[in-house]
């Protein structure tokens, strides 16, 4: 009989019993609601879950082993992946650079190389326990981990990272986490990426990952900020467009006078949507402020972008220790 392995413990399943029913029978708490594969409450992760248990999930979730426990009747032992038990790695802060009035870049060197996919995030824990999550902007080949930190008004971690922390300080990283990344397989598909504020960070990794792995469809990267002085990485992004002819870089700010002639002033959703064609073919990546990300996701979907092709990473501000930022 197949079983489910969770946290080192094996739970035997009865013949034909789903992972959900089996775990609950063993007294393991698993969220559930419809128990019929529709509500996604019972979403778990495992190594190689059966395909039919991944019905309806987007490619990135399937690749990362997400599955619906209520639909999963494994024929061999299924090993669950528990994000809470992820590896912790010590890392040294090796560099800090101011990118914009409210944004600094940190480079960290982890004790051991982190096995991550561009677009994922880590949680950074200070030695007193203060913890926040940040997206990785770097690529695995670069050898350092790059984070873009926005100064949050009253924010403990961002104040520490902006103003106080000394180069050479060690922190503890957990992760990587997250499913917002470039899944391979359709290199001619138009890509649309939009980063609001430090939402650019994961996209800087994702866009280079896509291009370096042969994506040759049209790629449009939108960078958005409140005002032109908050835009950053202009030189880096221009250098990318020189290197990759299929990459277009556009910038949009809500307010202000454009010191740069290429910056469009206006509401990002309006500006982006005005520019779109062939929506049904697009794969989109949206990162940053949750309200704007959600608004963009909805507008893009309504314009015809398939929902499963919209990868959104909303930077939810922390209200408790380990929340996305």
């Amino acid at each position: 009989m197949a079983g489910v392995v969770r946290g080192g413990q094996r739970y035997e399943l009865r013949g034909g019993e789903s992972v959900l029913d089996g775990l609950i029978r063993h007294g393991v708490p698993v969220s559930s609601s419809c128990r019929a594969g529709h509500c996604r409450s019972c979403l778990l992760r495992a190594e190689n879950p059966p395909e039919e248990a991944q019905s309806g999930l987007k490619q990135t979730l399937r690749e990362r082993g997400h599955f619906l426990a209520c639909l999963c009747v494994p024929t061999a032992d299924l090993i669950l992946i528990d994000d809470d038990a992820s590896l912790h790695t010590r890392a040294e802060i090796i560099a800090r650079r101011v990118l914009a009035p409210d944004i600094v870049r940190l480079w960290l060197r982890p004790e051991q190389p982190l096995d991550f996919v561009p677009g994922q995030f880590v949680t950074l824990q200070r030695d007193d326990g203060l913890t926040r999550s940040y997206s990785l902007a770097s690529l695995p080949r670069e050898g350092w981990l790059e984070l873009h930190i926005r100064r949050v008004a009253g924010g403990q971690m961002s104040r520490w990272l902006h103003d106080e922390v000394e180069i050479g300080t060690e922190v503890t990283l957990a992760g990587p986490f997250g499913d917002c990344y470039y899944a391979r397989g359709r290199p001619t598909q138009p890509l649309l990426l939009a980063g609001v504020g430090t939402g650019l960070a994961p996209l800087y990794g994702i866009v280079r990952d896509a291009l370096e792995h042969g994506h040759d469809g049209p790629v449009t990267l939108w960078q958005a900020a409140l005002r032109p002085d908050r835009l950053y990485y202009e030189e880096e992004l221009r250098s990318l467009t020189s290197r990759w002819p299929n990459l277009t870089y556009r910038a949009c700010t809500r307010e202000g006078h454009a010191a740069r002639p290429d910056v469009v002033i206006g509401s990002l959703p309006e500006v982006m949507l005005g520019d779109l064609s062939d929506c049904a073919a697009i794969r989109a990546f949206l990162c940053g402020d949750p309200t704007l990300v959600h608004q963009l996701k909805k507008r893009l979907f309504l314009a015809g972008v398939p929902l499963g092709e919209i990868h959104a990473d909303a930077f939810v501000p922390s209200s408790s220790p380990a929340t996305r930022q």
Partner: protein
Amino acid sequence: MSDTLFDRLGGEPAMQAAVEGFYRRMLADDRVSEFFDDVDMDRQMAKQKAFLTFVCGGPVRYTGLDMRTAHAPLLSRGLNDGHVDVVIEHLAGTLRDLGVAEAHIAEVGALAESVRADVLGR
């Protein structure tokens, strides 16, 4: 021996294709779109797909309690018969787009009607 509409439309892949159109209609309709604000869109679409599968006679069953529980929070936000009418209207529109005959659209409407009382907590 009758196939269900679900079978004749092409089963699960057809529902996957149809639900995007159905969900877009709901999101774009001011009469009901407020109920979809601030929801996880991927989860919401999964639920819509289940509902579409159900009304097309596919392998989804709802108990009255399921429908009551799921919609109870919306009652306090003013969910009423008018909203249910809009959903049925958009179901019909979605199926028309798929080329489904009016007689079958009426059957689907009837199945949708059968959950009205539970949805509205009567």
